[in-house]
Every structure is written in structure tokens, then in C-alpha cells.
């Protein structure tokens, strides 16, 4: 049963589905226009949006838990590898992949430790009792939630629109994966036009990340 007030959980579930739908549209644009970056984040947001909508509203959940766990394990591994690659190329720094790795990890936690009644929430987690009553470590849950809220705030405030999906150097580096290659205008992917340009507006990409961060942070708080 969805806890009171139900409107709240439907609202968050709708927001998650909206992010998923938007991410699908972005993915289509990325493929059609050979965009070199951001597609992995689109895939992650698509999976997270669909999965979390089912956590907020049980009836909207689909697919076995094992499938979702496998998806988020692969995403976690992918983003960790990408972070390591970025550090190898550019030295120790906070790659934007890290926040997506943290989000994938949080999704895994949600499946490993479904929300328990009696711990301040009865959120409609669809994962049943797979963890056999184990409770997520509240400190870790709070830490991740705070991290996602910070990511949402600093993403919105950043002058580098679209950085949540692409980082900030993709225009020069992304095509070659090298720091030593000078990238000219001729190497850029074809420019976005028409509806694709509107869909892939950098501020919209950031907005989807912000919505995902807030939704995921809320779910983690509910699971405490």
C-alpha cells in the first residue's frame, strides 16, 4: 500500500518516469547525431527512472529484482572504470562519472536492502523481502542522500550547463580520448537541429539529473 499522502508518491513516481522518458529521447538523439558523450548517463537515468517509479508506486514496478540488480551492477562497474580512465588521463580529480557511480551504487543498495516498515517509512518498495529483513545502514543512506542533494544544488548553480551528462571537456577531448590531440571544428559531431536541439538542451539535461538526485535522495531518506 502506498503511504499517506499518496499524491506525494505519485508525484515522485511521475517525475521518475518523466526522467526515464526524457533519457530515452536523449539516447535516440545521441545515436542519431553520433553524440560522443552522455549516452551512458542517459542509459543510467533511463534505468533508474523506471526502477524508482516502481519503488514509489508498487503497481508500476516490473521486471525481476535480479534483472535490475544486474543492470545497476553493470552501470556501477562502467562508471567506476570511466572514472579511473579519466583519472589516468588527467590525474586525480573528481570526474562527473563518480556521481553516476554513486547513484548506481545507491540503486543497488535499494535492491539489497528494501525499505522495512517500522523504520519511519512504509514506502511502497516493490522488491519484497529479498534481503530477509536486513536494514540499510542509515549512515550510508544519509551520506548518499546528502551527496545527491549537493550534486543537485551544485549542478543547478554551475555555469557549465550539461556538465552533469558530459563533463566539461568533451568538446575537445571526447572524440579522441586523448589529451594531446587538437580537435578542430571538423572533428565535432554534426550539430543538433530542430527538435533534437530542444531535447538535448544542456539545461534540460541538468534538470533531469537534478530531479533524479532529489528523487533518489528522498527514497534513501525514506529507507532510513
Amino acid at each position, binding site marked *: 500500500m502506498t*503511504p499517506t499522502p499518496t499524491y506525494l508518491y505519485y508525484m515522485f513516481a511521475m517525475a521518475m518516469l518523466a526522467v526515464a522518458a526524457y533519457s530515452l529521447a536523449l539516447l535516440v538523439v545521441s545515436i542519431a547525431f553520433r553524440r560522443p558523450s552522455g549516452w551512458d548517463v542517459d542509459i543510467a537515468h533511463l534505468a533508474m527512472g523506471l526502477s524508482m517509479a516502481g519503488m514509489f508506486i508498487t503497481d508500476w514496478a516490473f521486471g525481476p529484482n535480479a534483472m535490475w540488480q544486474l543492470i545497476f551492477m553493470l552501470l556501477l562497474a562502467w562508471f567506476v572504470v570511466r572514472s579511473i580512465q579519466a583519472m589516468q588521463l588527467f590525474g586525480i580529480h573528481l570526474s562527473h562519472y563518480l556521481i553516476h557511480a554513486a547513484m548506481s551504487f545507491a540503486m543497488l543498495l535499494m535492491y539489497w536492502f528494501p525499505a522495512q516498515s517500522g523504520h*519511519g517509512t512504509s*514506502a511502497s518498495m516493490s522488491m519484497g523481502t529479498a534481503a530477509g529483513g536486513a536494514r540499510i545502514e*542509515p549512515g550510508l543512506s544519509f551520506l548518499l542522500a546528502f551527496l545527491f542533494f549537493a550534486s543537485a544544488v551544485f549542478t543547478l548553480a554551475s555555469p557549465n550547463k550539461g556538465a552533469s551528462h558530459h563533463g566539461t571537456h*568533451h568538446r575537445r577531448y571526447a572524440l579522441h*580520448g586523448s589529451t594531446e590531440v587538437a580537435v578542430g571544428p571538423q572533428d565535432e559531431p554534426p550539430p543538433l537541429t530542430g527538435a533534437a536541439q530542444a531535447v538535448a538542451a544542456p539545461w534540460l539535461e541538468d534538470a533531469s539529473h537534478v530531479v533524479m538526485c532529489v528523487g533518489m535522495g528522498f527514497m534513501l*531518506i525514506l529507507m532510513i
Partner: protein
Amino acid sequence: MSVTEVDDSRVSAGADPAAGSPTDRTPRDLQRMFQLVLATVWLLDAVLQLQPFMFTRGSNGFSGMLNGFATGNPGWIDHSISWNASNVYHHPILTNSLFALIQFLIAFGIIWTRTLKPALVVSIVWSLGVWWFGEGLGTIFQGGATPFGGGPGGVLFYALLAVLLWPSEGGDRPFVAARTVGVRAASATWVVTWGLLAALALVGSGRSPRALHDLVAGLDSGEPGWLAHVDKASEMAFLHDGTTLAILLAVLCVVVAAAVFLPPAATQVILVVAIGVFAVIWVAVQNLGGILAGGATDPNSGLLVIILALLYWPQTAGRPPAIDSTGPTPATEEAPAR
């Protein structure tokens, strides 16, 4: 297609080798960064307001929590808090949704520079309102406003931070808090704040071992195992040495109050100690505001005192004055020099 990207976080933090020499970069706007930290805390508060128990009636609900702050206050304050709790009791979903919405608006308002000032004004007004109607004036009139427990009220620090972080052009020297209100006013605010904390550590039940023990003993229900163990240690420490600890905290607060007038190196040492002590208090006594037990509306004062202390961190050599007060420093897109 193989792609490699780099995030801007290190660039704006001034540590990206890809950006050339450090002098090529605009320094980070520390005041703006702290405004965003404040927005993050407000966002956390807004989400905490959406927890299911906040929408329920009864002693375990939000209205019950509010009613608990009424007891022990002077009659007219008691009545005003009870009136507010009654409204929440009769319209829990409406009122709590409204409360959460206001906090979301404050958080997102601070993020956008166009709405920053109105959001800070609302945050000050809201904080004072919550301090009165939601925290019973920090239990000052009940004699239990010890800084160990969050006295004089965690939410007051939101208002104080909003004032000190009011946007203005200029540099972050000698410390960020002085940028808008000036060194003299910022220093006076610092002295008053820490002087108040020192006093509250000693007056009323602030130095009572039993009261301090009960402060922690009432919190550990529902906490994770490791924090419950920490609570037990805190309870015993307070029971055996509560008065001594209260006096030590008061002495520390007095020293911290004076730190703003000392040389930067000495100030930094004292601030590190203060931050460390309040980090311990935040975890071991305030239990992070009770968030980990799933029954909190805010992170309590420990976190905010730490943020306040960081606002007074001396900005000495190596950091030129901030230029842009409208937002984080734009990241460079120049190729790395490797």
C-alpha cells in the same frame, strides 16, 4: 566510439593540470560556495519534511512533536506553540506539504542568483518562525538550551548564515563572513554567538549531569547499532563528568569567541579544535539531529556551527580576492598541458 571526458569540479577547485598555470584561473567564489552549501542543507530539510510520519497525527506525528516544545515555556509562548500544533494536527497533509514547499523554494531560490536575496529573506523569516513555533524558542525558557543538545536552537543558525552570506561584491579576506557585513560586524556577531553558546553551556540544566545524560538517553531509540553504542558512551560520560564537560565546553566557546581577534595561524588552530568538538557533539550527542533514526526534521545545530566556523576561516596568502559573486567560476575548456 571511445570517449573521454573530464569533469569541471577540479578545474573550479583550482587543481586541474589541464587548465594551465594556476594564475590562468579565476579564483573560486567562496561566498557563493557557502550559499550553495546552505541551499543543500535546506534541500535536505525539505526532503526530511516529506517523511511519512510528518503527515500523521498523534504523539508520534509532527503535531505531537510540536506540542512537546510547548511544555515548560511561559504561558503566551506555550499557547502560540499549541495553536500552531493544533493547526498541524487538524490539517497535517496541507500544513506539512506547505512547510516542505517553503523549504524547497528556499533551497532552489538560493541556487538561482536572481532569486537569491528573496530566498535568503524568506529563510531568515522562516527560521525565526520555526524557532518560535517549531522549536519552542530553542527551549531557552525551559533552561535546557545547552549547546550539547542544539541550543539555542539549530534553526537560528540558518538565519545567522543567511545574514552572513548575503550576496555582495568584494573579496573573501580576512574571512568570508566579513564580505558583506564587514569585519567589525562579523567579529561582533562571532563573539556574541560563541558567548551565548558559552553561557548556555552553564546555565539552567546545561551543567546538570542527569539532564545531559537524559539528553542523549532519549535519543538512541531507533538509531543504528554503532550510534547506539556511541550514545551509551556519551550517556556515561555525561553522568560521571557532565558538569566538567559543560565547563570545558563553555571555556572552549570563550576561547573560540576570542579567536577572531588572534593572528590567522592561531585562529585556524582554534577553529580546527572547535570544528572537531562540534563534529563530535553533532554525532555523539545530537545523533546528527536524529536523522538516522528516521524521525528528524533537520540535522540540528552541530553541522551548522561547523559551517559557521568555516565562514570565519582566515583567508590569507595564496588566494586572491574573488571576482565573480554571481556564481561558481566557469571551468576552462582548454586542453591540458601534458
